[in-house]
């Protein structure tokens, strides 16, 4: 097999140290695991998008050079063991409580970078209150939200984000919206809140979309470093195992059904709107409210 030509591969800067190192006669490292990822086998099913997004988060942490000051909060869901996969400090939260735990850490160490990684059951059902309030408080944290429209870990029950008529273990006749209501569109919901600096919905079904997802995740971290406000990236994801599909069919189902219901795009970006921070944008929005305009003396 022909060895890849290093000159043809655009390597991320963070890997440069290791890349190109000769490890044996005729063998050279061309790509490496991000430093912040540990050398363990994950518990994710083959073809699961959790693995892709874990990797993207790790690449962003590496590229921003923040591993030493990053504290990650793992959820309860298929990514519950994330504390084993990451080399930065990690805390395992109770189901849905990651934003509250992240708040506690960030308030103690504002100079740290704190991220929560949560599934849809975790973030949009049991932890809705914690999510909405961390967002509206404008906690300077980064949230990565994996919306796979199902409760993966517990074996495929209906999630708050399961689509109308989607068959799951607990909606065996299809989600009947007349009885159990409608899916929650988290990005749209959170974009209305003043504490939020940035919300974008991305997916990872193609190389192009994966690159866009990485850009969004990196921005969500950069916003925190710059003190701009709460940032959340919703990743429309798949669960091939509980959807009962091959990974490729799952991506097709995602494109056919998930993306029309959960359109990709930026739902809020205060910087793009011309503000320095979420707080500035909030002040402008409340410009006719005298009490909201009162200046705080520090």
């Amino acid at each position: 097999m022909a060895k890849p030509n290093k000159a043809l591969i655009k390597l991320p800067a963070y890997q440069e140290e290791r890349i190109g190192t000769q490890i044996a006669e005729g063998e050279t490292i061309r790509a490496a695991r991000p430093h912040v990822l540990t050398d363990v086998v994950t518990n994710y099913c083959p073809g699961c998008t959790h693995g892709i997004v874990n990797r993207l988060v790790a690449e962003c942490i590496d590229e921003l050079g923040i591993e030493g000051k990053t504290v990650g909060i793992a959820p309860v869901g298929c990514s519950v063991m994330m504390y084993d996969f990451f080399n930065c400090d990690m805390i395992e939260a109770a189901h849905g409580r990651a934003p509250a735990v992240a708040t506690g850490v960030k308030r103690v160490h504002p100079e740290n970078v704190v991220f929560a990684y949560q599934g849809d059951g975790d973030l949009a059902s049991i932890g809705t209150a914690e999510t909405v309030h961390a967002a509206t408080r404008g906690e300077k944290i980064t949230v990565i939200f994996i919306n796979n429209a199902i409760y993966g870990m517990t074996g495929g029950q209906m999630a708050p984000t399961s689509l109308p008529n989607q068959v799951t273990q607990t909606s065996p006749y299809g989600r009947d919206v007349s009885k159990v209501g409608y899916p929650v569109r988290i990005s749209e919901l959170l974009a209305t809140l003043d504490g939020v600096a940035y919300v974008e919905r991305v997916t990872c079904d193609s190389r192009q979309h994966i690159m866009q997802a990485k850009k969004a995740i990196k921005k969500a971290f950069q916003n925190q470093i710059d003190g701009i406000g709460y940032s959340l990236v919703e990743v429309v994801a798949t669960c091939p195992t509980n959807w009962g599909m091959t990974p490729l069919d799952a991506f097709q189902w995602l494109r056919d059904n998930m993306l029309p219901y959960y359109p990709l795009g930026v739902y809020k970006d205060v910087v793009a709107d011309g503000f320095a921070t979420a707080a500035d944008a909030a002040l402008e929005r409340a410009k006719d409210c005298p009490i909201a305009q009162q200046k705080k003396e520090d």
Partner: protein
Amino acid sequence: MKGNEVLAEAAMRAGCRFFFGYPITPQTELAAYMAKKLPTIGGTFLQAESEIAAINMVYGAAAAGARVMTSSSSPGVSLKGEGVSYMAGADCPGVIVNVQRGGPGLGGIQPSQSDYFQATRALGHGDFYMPVFAPSTVQEMADLIYDAFDLADEYRTPTMILADGMIGQMMEPVLLPPERDLSTLPAKPWATSGSRMERKHNVINSLYLSPNKLEDTNYERFERYEQIKEKHQRQELMSCDDAQIVVVAFGAASRIARTAVRDARKKGIKAGLLRPITLWPFPTKAIDELCDGGASSFLSVELNMGQMVQDVRLAVNGRASVDFYGRTGGVLPTPEEVLQAIEKVAAGEPVVQSAEPGAVGSLLPHPKHRKSSYERGE
């Protein structure tokens, strides 16, 4: 200062700089005091969206290495159960204050001790305990919360102050503990405060999918519990040297019991008072000594339908008789009622002997007693 304010002031003096809570009566003054003062000394007061969020913020702050606390009252403490269990499971220190009110459900807002089981039998799911301190004076509100922080850090465990509405609202003179020099607080090399690339990453976690590993961590934690039981049982004894009848009471109930025991002595009854200061660990060694010293009867007096009496029975283990007298729902017994109960014990008559309204210790108090001490104008 009110008892609740003293708790807040002493906590800050103990080095607590982070408070997360949700409003509820009768702990209100504590949070209000924190809200006012904490920001002026470089601390953080945050009103959370719920007690569930508050305790999980405490968990996060504790994991990050801070001295941190929360306070609530009975219904709110139920919601904290989840977070306290995770704190215990992940060995995170922090202080939880419960200024108890009557229950169950929304209950009332008058003083009560109805959360004794909840506090001492593990607040939340799983196999764990936490040290519980029961102040009976405003001075003890100050002293015990100081100790609660130190014990929490030393043994990496949540600890609780189990107060009640009476001591929380009461004003008494108090000598505040010294300001803790923050640089003397114990180091927490296990904290998830960022590795700074100088050490292996820290993990705060309570998940162990391997049963053997989980058993090992529980065994290790229970070894710490054994040390706490060995070294940190605390109680006050009054007139116990020659006591034949020992009244056991904590917190607000102990103040009433104290008067009743004095009155019993005046009547020639050899009564004494054992006041547990730690409810967990329960002062079993003191009970051993009292049994060895000739106490033949114990009378547990509580502001509930009989909870601590179970621990008294376990500790006495058949060596003496054990009786109970209590009032519930926020009603405080009078010293006379307690004295009557002591006299029953002295006469060898069972205290809880019938459902006849008005019988001492009867589950149905006499209508005249159904008014609270406040309503009776006492």
